Structure formats: C-alpha cells, structure tokens
C-alpha cells in the first residue's frame, strides 16, 4: 500500500474511475439514446420578442444578422451570439439557470424556488430543458446575486432588458449589476448592437418553451427520465375537527337565542 505502483493504480486510476462511473457515467447513462435537440429544432419555436426586435431596430438588426426578417437562421445566430456574450461576461456567475425542487408545492417545507421563479407553470427545472445544443456546457450557476433566469422569457419586455443592460439602476434601483454599455452602438444606449440583440434574444428564449409554447412545449423536446420525482405529493394536513365543548344546543350564544 505504500508503493508507487499500488498508489498510482488503486488510488489514482481505480478510485477515480469508480467515482466517475457512479457520479458521472450512471447519471449520464439515463440520457443515452435520447437525441440532443439541435439548433434547427430550437429555431422552430421563435419567441415573439425576437420578431419584435427585428421590427423595433430594423437597421441594427440588418447590420447584425444580414436580414430584416426574424428568420430561423437569424434566430439561431442571435442565440449563439447571446449565449457567447452571456458566458464571456460571466452572467452565469451571478444569475442561476436552475429552479430547484424546493417548495411547499413540491413537498418540502423550506425554500420557495418554484413559487418565486415559476409561479405560472409550477414546475421545477427538469432535465429536458437542458438537453439541447444551447447547453454545451450547461449554465446552472452556483451563486444567485441577481434573479434566476431560466424562465426569464416574457418576464420583462425587450425595452426593459435593453434599459437594464445599459444601466441596471434604471429599471432595478437597488441592483448591483454593472452596466454593459458595449452592448450598444451609440453613446446614449438607444440602439443595441449585435451582442446586445443577441443577449436580449437569449434572455427572451430562456424558458419560452414553457411560457409561449406551453400546449406544444414538449412536441420538439425529448422526454427525459425524471426519476428524481420521488417525493410524495404534498398534502397540507387539515386541522382535525375538534369537538365543540359547547354543542349547538348548549351554546348559550350559538343559536342567537337564550335557552329556555
């Protein structure tokens, strides 16, 4: 046990491989054979906010994506640009993209992730949502200085987002987020550039599969095993009916009449 070879093979290779299999390969094996959603498929559901961007900033849009129409090609490109900027500026270090399964609605008593971040759909994050070409690698995040963004689509308008990116204090007075003035072409923050359009597209795409395309949301998404659904449904305990020590008959005031 104190020889180089033994430590190299057992501690180094074998223990690491064991952990890799249990903690990495087994969770991974659950998603084997389920196709990763491609960009083309994602581009079949274009959020209306993207069309709005094309309409509101036609020149900037054309300069950025080479067309004035909110086409699928332009949408794919905008998503990529947005995601790249989201990573380059490390947005994901202050904004999570993960609604944890902690909520009274989901059977736990502490924590209100679902109530806060998915009050409309009442759904915690599921593996399906991340099984696509926009998640190489995933952007779960580990710190939440600002709000979670995985369902940010439609929570605010495009204008709100652009004003927020230009100076976060304009829309959220207590925000500590730094301004991103280089997302804009002009000195006044009125015209977003390619990066700015991309970031807004990305933010408006996040969660659009739930909020905009709800009836068909799973049409294009593979169903992934969701075996973490182990929790018994939360049934609020009703207070047991106590026997009234003063029955209706005996209650001097219950009937509103003095007993005879």
């Amino acid at each position, binding site marked *: *046990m*104190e*020889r*180089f070879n033994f*430590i*190299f093979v057992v*501690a*180094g290779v074998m*223990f*690491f491989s*064991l*952990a*890799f299999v*249990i*903690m*990495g390969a*087994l*969770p991974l094996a*659950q*998603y084997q054979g389920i196709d990763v959603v491609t960009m083309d498929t994602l581009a079949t559901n274009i959020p209306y906010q993207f069309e709005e961007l094309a309409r509101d900033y036609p020149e900037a849009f054309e300069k950025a994506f080479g067309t004035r129409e909110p086409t699928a090609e332009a949408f794919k490109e905008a998503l990529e640009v947005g995601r*790249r*900027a989201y*990573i*380059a*500026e*490390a947005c994901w*270090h*202050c904004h999570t993209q993960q609604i*944890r*399964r*902690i909520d009274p609605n989901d059977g736990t008593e*502490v*924590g*209100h992730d679902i109530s*806060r971040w998915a009050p409309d759909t009442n759904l915690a*994050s599921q*593996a399906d949502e*991340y*099984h696509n*070409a926009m*998640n*190489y*690698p*995933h*952007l779960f*995040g*580990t*710190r939440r200085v600002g*709000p979670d963004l995985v369902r940010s689509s439609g929570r605010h308008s495009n204008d709100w987002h652009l004003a927020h990116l230009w100076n976060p204090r304009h829309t*959220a*007075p*207590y*925000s*500590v987020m*730094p*301004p991103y003035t*280089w997302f804009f072409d002009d000195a006044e923050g009125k015209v977003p550039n390619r990066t700015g359009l991309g970031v807004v597209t990305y933010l408006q795409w996040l969660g659009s599969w739930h909020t905009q395309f709800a009836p068909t949301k799973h049409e294009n998404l593979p169903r*992934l095993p*969701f075996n*973490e659904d182990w929790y018994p449904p939360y049934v609020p305990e009703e207070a047991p009916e106590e026997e009234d020590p003063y029955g209706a008959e005996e209650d001097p005031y219950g009937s509103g009449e003095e007993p005879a």
Partner: protein
Amino acid sequence: MTQIATSLIKPVVVTSRGETRVLVDTTSSLLHFAAAVAWIGVGIVAGLLYSFVFLRLYPNEGVEWLSPGRVRMVHTNLMAYGFLTNAFIGMLHWVVPRLTGEPVLSHALSKLIFLAWNAIVAAAIGGILLGQAQAIEWGETPFWSDHLVVVGVALVVVNFCWSLIRSREKAMYVSLWYFTAAFVWTPLVYIMGNYLPQTLVPGTGGAALVGLYIHDLVGLFVTPMGWGLMYFFVPVITRKPIFSHAISLVGFWGLAFFYPLNGVHHFLWSPIPMFAQYGAVISTIAVEIVVTTVVINFVMTMRGEWGRLKDSIALRWFMVGMTCYFITCLQCAFQTTLTMQKVIHFTDWVVGHSHLVMFGVFSFWIAGVIEHLWPKLTGRDWWSRRLNLWHFWLWTGGVALMFADLTVIGVVQGLLWDGLRPWEESIRYSEIGWFFRMISGWMILIGFICLGANMLMSLLARQEHSDSDYAGQFVEAQAGAGGTRD
C-alpha cells in the same frame, strides 16, 4: 559572501541509485515561488476590484475588457493556475527529490515547464479578458488554452514521476503518496471537466461532470498537494516524526476513496438524478471523518511543540491553515445536507466557505512554505520579521473577517429568499456585509504587499542566511518513515 555563493551552487550528491548527480533544482523552485507570489498579487487586486461591484462602485465602467464578470474569472483562475499551481510545482521541486533521492527527469525541462506554464496562464487570462471564457466553473480559461494546459500538466507529471519511479528508497514517505495520487488525478480531472461537458455531454449529464470537476480540482489536485507539503514541512520544522503511521494511512486512503465521489454536492436539488445527489452527500460527510483523523495526526505531532508557534511564523501558517481546514470540512459536513442546502445554496455562505478553504487553508500553507524556504532558496535572511508578522496577522484577520461576514449574510440572504421577500431586499440587507468583505479584501492586499516587499528587500539587503542547512544540502531529519531530508 562565500556562504551566499555556495548556497546558490547546486550541490552534487550521490542519489539513491548511487549515481553522482545534481539532486535538487533550487532555481526552478525559486522561480516558481516568485511567479506564484506575483500572480497572487494580481489575483488579489482582481478580487478586490470585483468586490467593489457589490458596493455599486464601478471604477472600470465602460471598459469592456475589464468588465467585472471577466475580472471575477481572472481572480479565480489566477488563484488556481497562477498562484496555487506555481507554488505547488516550486514546492515539489524542493520536496520530491529529497524524499525519493532521485532528481527529476530533466532540470532543463523544469525550466521549460516554468516558462511554458506561466506563458499559458498569461495567455489564458488574456483570453478571459478578451471575452473568450469557457462556461466551466474554475475552468473558465478559454477552450483553446485547455489543450495547452493538458500538455503542461502532462510534462509536470512526467518530470516528477520519473523521480518517483526511479527511486530506490526503501519506503515511500506519506507526502509522496499524496503527490503520486495527485499526479494521476489532476490530468484526468482536467480532461474530464474541460472537454466532456463542452463537446460531448450537454445539460444535466454535463452538470454532473462539472460538479465533479469543480470539486475534484480542490479535492484531487489542491488537497493532496497541500497535505503532502504539510506532512513534509511540519516534521521538518518541529524536528519530530509524524505521530502515527497508521493514521496517515487511514487519512490517505479515506481521502482517495471518498473525495472523488463528492462532486455532485455542488448541484443539490437540481435535475441531476437523486441517487447521485444522495451519494455525494453521504461521501461528503464521510470525508469529514477522514479529515478529522488527519488533523488528529498533526495535533498529536505538535504535542509539546505548541510553544514553537511563538518563534516560527511558518509553523503558525501551517497550524492556522489546519484549523481553517478543520472548520471548513466540519462546515461542509453540515452544509452539504439537503436540508441546509435549501437555505444556504446560491448565497454568500458558499463564497465564504470557498475563501476559507482556498485562501485560509491552502494559501496559508503556501505562505508557510515561502516563509520557511525563501531564505533557503535565496541564501538571504528575511529582511524584516516584523513585516512577516504583519503579513500573518493581516491575512489571518482578513480571512476571519471575510468568512464570518459572508457566512452571516449568506444565512440572511437564504432566509429572505425563503420568506419570499422582494428580491431587492436580499441585496439591501447584504450591503453591509459586502462592505466588510471589501475591507477584508484590503487587509489581504496590504498583507500581500508586506510579503512581496519583504521578499524583495531580502534579496536587496543581501543579509546572509545564517541557517546552516542551506539550499540543497542534506540534513537527515528524524522525520517520517522514509527519513525526511530537510
């Protein structure tokens, strides 16, 4: 003067195979420590700069490449690849040939590694500032630089493993167990974390791997290096052998088995399958038990030697670091439970925890090594003991303040979120905590200036190092099973 001259000449010695060779490459060791200290300086400034953001101060507003998010990634990555890695390689150059009795593969290769590694770090940091970051926590270095890092790590591993393989020493000392394991783990961890989620495994499956990566970089690279240096330097300074060989075995094999299983605890309550989450929680708690055995081993080694803390600042760094380590791991055993995660996950509690472990433990141990080795490597005495004391107290005070402060506001944030209070409220209640976090940053920066100034002045003052066992010379210490050489 003669002594300075001789101390810089590498002694030619008889190796464990009976060959006459230069054993220890002190120049490489010196270079790596100097680079480590330079990088931590930049890293501390980056961290401090980032802490201003939370007070709504934006000194670099409008400067794209100094965007706070990028500065944050520079901070964390410099600490990992600029500071810790350089310092560990410098430490390995000092320790490994002494314990194996064999030199590394090639002293020229060591110099090449020094140049290449620091060039890679500089390039990767440049890439992050230019907006080419990769979305892997602790691996934000641009994807193109990952290939270079893998080559660099491979060279380091080959260079040192050569020495380990060729050794004819009868017993392998504890430090070397840790180093050997780390030499296998580090490249595997790096490749797993930086390549698979980026190219092959999207979403939740990738998250499980990234969880492993975040944790393994701490647990399978930094931690074994750290304990390896503790097992070497504490007995050398106290001139006492390690208390128990058996406990050392328990500590090492426990760590080797349980630590790799921890990763998923970074994403509890996420869509990652629950069996992995449960497993991670259980093995995290198991690690705490293992860690306790190691700490007991060192506390017992220090029995009767605690008075040495008065005169040996190096020993102070080691012992304060070890105390922080125990606190961190104890904290970890509790905070990893699913119950506590509901409140403290995503809050500043975690930030405090990570600063306590990366700064309060491993940076402190490296500070101890620098304190001990700098005179031996340069042949010159410390210019000022007073400055070293200031360095010690400023860093200790700084990390204590930061840890206490962030832990408290972490709980406040978690409870405000749980109470469904408006989001802004958690920001406003945190402001006071973020202010004190910045103060602790200043303390750490000033402490660093004390260290850097003292190192420079020691070189300039040219005061000969009075210690007789100067660089490269063998002194058989009675430490350790394998007979540690000081």
